[in-house]
């Protein structure tokens, strides 16, 4: 048995087990896994939850868990023991409770309606009093659990609000349900007057439906988040063979990662070669070959070789830690407008209560028998529930949905602001380009050497360096030669010896005393020399991100001003930007220059989106109306940005623009609907034209409409270049 896996599971005993299986992609997978695991003798109650990608089972023997993991691995599913997540557990519990309340309210509503309908159809004198009273009593009995069990969250919320001397949305809701029930009960017992059990039940049911939908949307958001965090293994193997808890790993520890294991830390490969699946981080679908000197990321999986690697930094600085920090932020973010909506709602609620009491008193003084019905109708109809739901629900769903495009939102207003921009500014290096150097061309100077030989020598010289040139060279070859006296002259190059011969690689002036010039200036050139005689030129370039030209075309089609602010001074950079379609890219900009340039654009009346990746963009991103960080390595950049693109694929940008517009449109519809509804129905209710059951139906339908409308945002357009 794999010792690492053993360490991981030796804590586990028999009993209830929970695992996360991130690879479950369809409901069908769940059943396949269930069927396979069900065949194992020591396991029972196997259940795979599709929505949460969560496997639970009861292990009858301590070893059973191990067999389950082995079986899953055989089938090609990665799994990780679920760490106890209080937030998630609470969500699940709350969802169950809410569903039970909702069901009770729904069944109760239907029963009460049945009796109510009979009386509506029969009219006032159509039913004998004895039957009439019987049905009222039956309605009351059914309304009892609806009022005191189903509607409990509203009563509790109202009580909490009152204790804090604030008026939340729950106050009028709870008041309406309780007063309708109480008055109807009195009328039932005294056998005089109307009953409103049907209104109370209906009101409760539809409001709970809205709550339930909202909760499910938030839960979906949370599930995505915890899946990311659970990628990390619990244990790591030191080079000595010792198994340690991952928390004991520190910078410069040397670890071994075997085939099929998840990489436990951000590290640099010292030995070995393997393909690594980094799709969770880069969005790149195929595995990436990692050889000596390559950086590997915690949470990615090592597919086919054994790697020895040196841990780069403390756990807090690993990319995965930054990402989970971002996730946490975007999940806990409470948009400012939601707080504002609450304040407005508080005034609105006071007004509603006064209005309801006022119209009730007026009609009572006027001698109307329906004074309570009217007050109740006003109370119910004017409750601003839909108004307070209109924006937050849309934002919660939208921020969750854009994750499918690889965008993590840290400022809730990001999408709304994005829908209003009319200028876009790109940074060049690291944003439009990948920000790493790749070997493009080799120009041999000494024809005794073959291409492979010079690459091998160059890679051997660069073997300890972490410079982008070194990383790129080492990806080219596996044949390394042993060199002695390797010496790095920072900023110039590297030298080393073999059999008395000195090899140097670096800037032309460092590698050789001869006056040589690079083949052309289309690439970054590095010279390799042997005893001061030039051997070969290596040309590197920073490649454009995939699909950038389509994205730039699409962006230019949509907005009047699309600009590039680049710190790069080279003509080469300018030329490439021209090819991309930028007429006047601004080159050689300092961080302050970028800020000035942005303010200039804003002074011209543009609302600007800034896309950047590095520290030199952070200032400009803070100034911009809205900003998106592209694969940032630095947490400062992340916190300056309103949102972060974590998969580095700019291809989703046009889709994101469209989506932002859609979010805005739906929020507008919601607000418009909520306001129109409240203001058009309140006068009718005050005049006494709205019976309570119509009020209950209208009000809760309005909330439901707003929530369902927002749920349409859960679908994100699948993007491929400029298909819009």
């Amino acid at each position, binding site marked *: 048995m794999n010792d690492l896996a053993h360490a991981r599971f030796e804590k586990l005993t028999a009993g209830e087990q929970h695992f996360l299986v991130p690879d479950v992609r369809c*409901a069908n997978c769940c059943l396949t896994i269930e069927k396979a695991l069900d065949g194992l003798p020591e396991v029972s*109650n196997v259940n795979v939850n599709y929505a949460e990608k969560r496997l639970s089972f009861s292990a009858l023997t301590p070893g059973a868990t191990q067999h389950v993991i082995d079986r899953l691995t055989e089938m090609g599913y990665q799994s990780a023991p679920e760490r106890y997540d209080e937030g998630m557990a609470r969500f699940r519990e709350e969802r169950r409770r809410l*569903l039970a309340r909702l069901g009770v309210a729904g069944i*109760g509503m239907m*029963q009460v309606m049945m009796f109510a309908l009979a009386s509506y159809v029969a009219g006032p004198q159509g039913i004998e009093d004895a039957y009439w009273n019987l049905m009222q009593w039956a309605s009351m009995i059914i309304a009892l659990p609806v009022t005191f069990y189903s509607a409990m969250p509203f009563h509790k919320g109202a009580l909490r609000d009152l204790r804090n001397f604030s008026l939340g949305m729950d106050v009028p809701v709870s008041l309406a349900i309780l007063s309708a029930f109480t008055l109807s009960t009195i009328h039932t017992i005294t056998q005089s007057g109307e009953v409103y059990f049907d209104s109370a039940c209906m009101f409760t049911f539809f409001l709970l439906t809205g709550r339930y939908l909202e909760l499910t949307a938030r839960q979906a958001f949370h599930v995505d988040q915890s899946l990311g965090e659970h990628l990390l293994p619990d244990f790591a193997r030191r080079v000595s063979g010792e198994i340690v808890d991952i928390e004991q790993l520190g910078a410069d520890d040397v670890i071994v990662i075997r085939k099929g294991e998840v990489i436990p830390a951000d590290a640099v490969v010292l030995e070995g070669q393997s393909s690594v699946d980094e799709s969770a981080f880069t969005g790149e679908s195929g595995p990436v070959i990692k050889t000596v000197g390559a950086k590997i990321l915690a949470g990615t999986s090592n597919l086919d070789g054994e790697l020895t690697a040196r841990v780069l930094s403390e756990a807090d600085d690993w990319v995965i830690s930054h990402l989970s920090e971002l996730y946490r932020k975007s999940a806990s973010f409470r948009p400012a407008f939601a707080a504002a909506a609450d304040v407005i709602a508080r005034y609105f609620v006071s007004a509603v209560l006064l209005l309801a009491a006022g119209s009730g008193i007026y009609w009572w003084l006027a001698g109307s028998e329906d004074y309570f019905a009217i007050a109740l109708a006003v109370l119910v109809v004017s409750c601003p529930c839909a108004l307070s739901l209109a924006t937050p629900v849309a934002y919660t769903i939208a921020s969750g949905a854009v994750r499918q495009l690889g965008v993590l939102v840290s400022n809730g207003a990001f999408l709304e602001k994005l829908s209003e921009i009319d200028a876009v500014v790109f940074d060049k290096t690291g944003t439009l380009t990948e920000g790493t150097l790749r070997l493009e061309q080799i120009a041999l100077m000494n024809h005794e050497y073959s291409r492979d030989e010079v690459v091998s020598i160059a890679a051997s010289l660069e073997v300890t360096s972490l410079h982008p040139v070194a990383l790129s060279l080492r990806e080219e070859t596996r044949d390394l030669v042993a060199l002695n006296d390797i010496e790095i002259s920072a900023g110039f190059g590297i030298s080393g010896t073999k059999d008395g011969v000195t090899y140097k690689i670096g800037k032309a002036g460092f590698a050789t005393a001869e006056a040589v010039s690079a083949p052309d200036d289309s690439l970054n050139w590095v010279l390799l020399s042997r005893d001061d005689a030039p051997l070969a030129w290596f040309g590197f370039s920073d490649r454009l991100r995939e699909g950038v030209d389509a994205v730039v075309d699409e962006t230019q089609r949509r907005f009047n001003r699309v600009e590039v602010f680049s710190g790069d001074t080279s003509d080469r950079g300018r030329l490439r930007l021209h090819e991309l379609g930028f007429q006047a890219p601004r080159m050689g900009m300092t961080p302050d220059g970028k800020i000035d340039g942005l303010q200039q654009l804003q002074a011209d009346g543009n609302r600007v989106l800034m896309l950047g990746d590095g520290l030199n963009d952070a200032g400009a991103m803070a100034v911009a109306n809205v900003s998106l960080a592209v694969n940032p390595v630095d947490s400062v950049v992340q916190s300056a940005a309103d949102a972060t693109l974590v998969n580095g694929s700019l291809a989703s940008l046009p889709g994101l623009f469209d989506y932002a517009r859609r979010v805005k449109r739906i929020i507008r519809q919601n607000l418009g609907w909520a306001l129109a509804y409240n203001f058009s129905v309140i006068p009718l209710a005050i005049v006494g034209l709205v019976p309570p059951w119509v009020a209950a139906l209208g009000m809760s339908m309005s909330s439901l409409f707003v929530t369902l409308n927002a749920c349409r945002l859960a679908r994100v357009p699948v993007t491929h270049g400029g298909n819009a």
Partner: protein
Amino acid sequence: MEILFVLIPVSLIIVGIALSAFVWSVHNRQYEDLDKEAYRILFDDNSTTMTTSLDRAASETEEKS
């Protein structure tokens, strides 16, 4: 129509039973995953996940005896 005095209370009892059955099934976690169950019928296999290990143990002892 006096029968209503019997039928309505009876219906209330039935509603009560239905409600408690529903609440029980929710807390028994039967509504946790509504996507998966639709596919179960497409799997034509006798051994479903509904058979617990106890059932299996029982059937095994039957086979032995």
